[in-house]
């Protein structure tokens, strides 16, 4: 299982694509792009204009896959966001960072065997696509 060690790193790394399309989560102090120059190697704390937002840069950690540094934004005591400032350029970690494809929502019809959807009630079933498929036998 490859989960043991990389999982913490990857769960953070998995958030990287997020900042590209979820600006609403950004606090005023951290509009930076996903990749920025590495800050000081020791943790540094900086406060934003507000009273509660704090950005903490972690120190550079050498893992067996390469150096890792994260930046955590605190809103009061709670973690508001985590950014990967530096991630190993290693095939294993690069592959594990999810690549998300953006598309337009389509409304199509097609030959299908079954339908996945939000949990449907027994009442709603009668009018559903799945009921039609079941009835066709």
């Amino acid at each position, binding site marked *: 299982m490859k989960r043991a060690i990389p999982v913490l790193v990857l769960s953070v790394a998995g958030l990287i694509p997020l900042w590209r399309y979820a600006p609403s*989560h950004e606090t005023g102090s951290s509009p930076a792009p996903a990749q920025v120059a590495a800050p000081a190697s020791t943790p540094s704390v900086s406060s934003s204009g507000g009273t509660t937002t704090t950005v903490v840069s972690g120190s550079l950690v050498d893992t067996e896959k390469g150096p890792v540094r994260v930046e955590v934004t605190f809103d009061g005591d709670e973690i508001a966001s985590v950014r990967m400032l530096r991630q190993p350029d290693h095939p294993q970690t690069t592959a594990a960072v999810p*690549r998300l494809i953006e*598309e337009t929502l389509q409304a199509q019809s097609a030959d299908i065997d079954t339908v996945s959807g939000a949990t449907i009630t027994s009442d709603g079933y009668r009018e559903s696509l799945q009921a039609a498929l079941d009835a066709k036998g």
Partner: protein
Amino acid sequence: MRRVEHVMGFPVSVRIDDEDFPEAPVDALFAWLREADARFSPFRPDSEVSRLDRGEVSEPSPGLREVLDLCEEYRIATGGAFDARLPGRGLDPCAVVKGWSVQKGAELLRAAGARRFCVNAGGDVIASGGPWRVGVRHPERADRLCAVLDVTDRALATSARYERGDHILDGRTGRPATGLLGMTVVAPTLTEADTVATAAFALGVEGVAWAAAREHCEVFAVDAGRRVLRSAGFPVAEAPAPGRASRKPTRRTGGPTHRVRGVADGVAPPAAL
């Protein structure tokens, strides 16, 4: 063979394409689902879950222990967005119980020799053998699909608000999760697909990358702005050539090809909304 029964408040459709498959294992599947409902429903005052919640049970049964451990695993993994114990509410492990119990039920079929079958539990799908053509319901149009997949030996689950309203709460805020219109997850088991889909839906937009980063999970999400975000490995079916009336059935065991009622014949060109 096909069978539809209603358990836990939703329809469960079973289709088994193996020839001469006996009825008994299918009976066993439905008996198990009814047992799971009786034991793990928070809506039944005499269920084990309700009794545990009232402090009348000191040690959960191994089955409930498994469910509670999964709840805890996902609570931690989502930073509390997914939580079976929300403040002011009773213990509610439904989000785990559904996928977990249907997965165990499907394993009864497999143990009895079923190889090519499909279980659809209120929109959550276990596809054994394959390939199966699985549509994902459009989040805003009940008679349309927003994706069509080719699925073999995988499970998929969808979380959304269109059937039961704002029933998924973000445990971090206690408020309904509204960042996504729909979240579909493909995983090796329905236990994982269902729980990851619900947990990602509770997380909202950040749940898309969270779920996609999980090993063996592929995601297809529609955000509140009607934008699709999907992982590269999401098993989208190959589009038939334009002008073709319909896909030729290519399945091993034949069987009828099903056309959705009320939908234009053939494969309509995808219409952007």
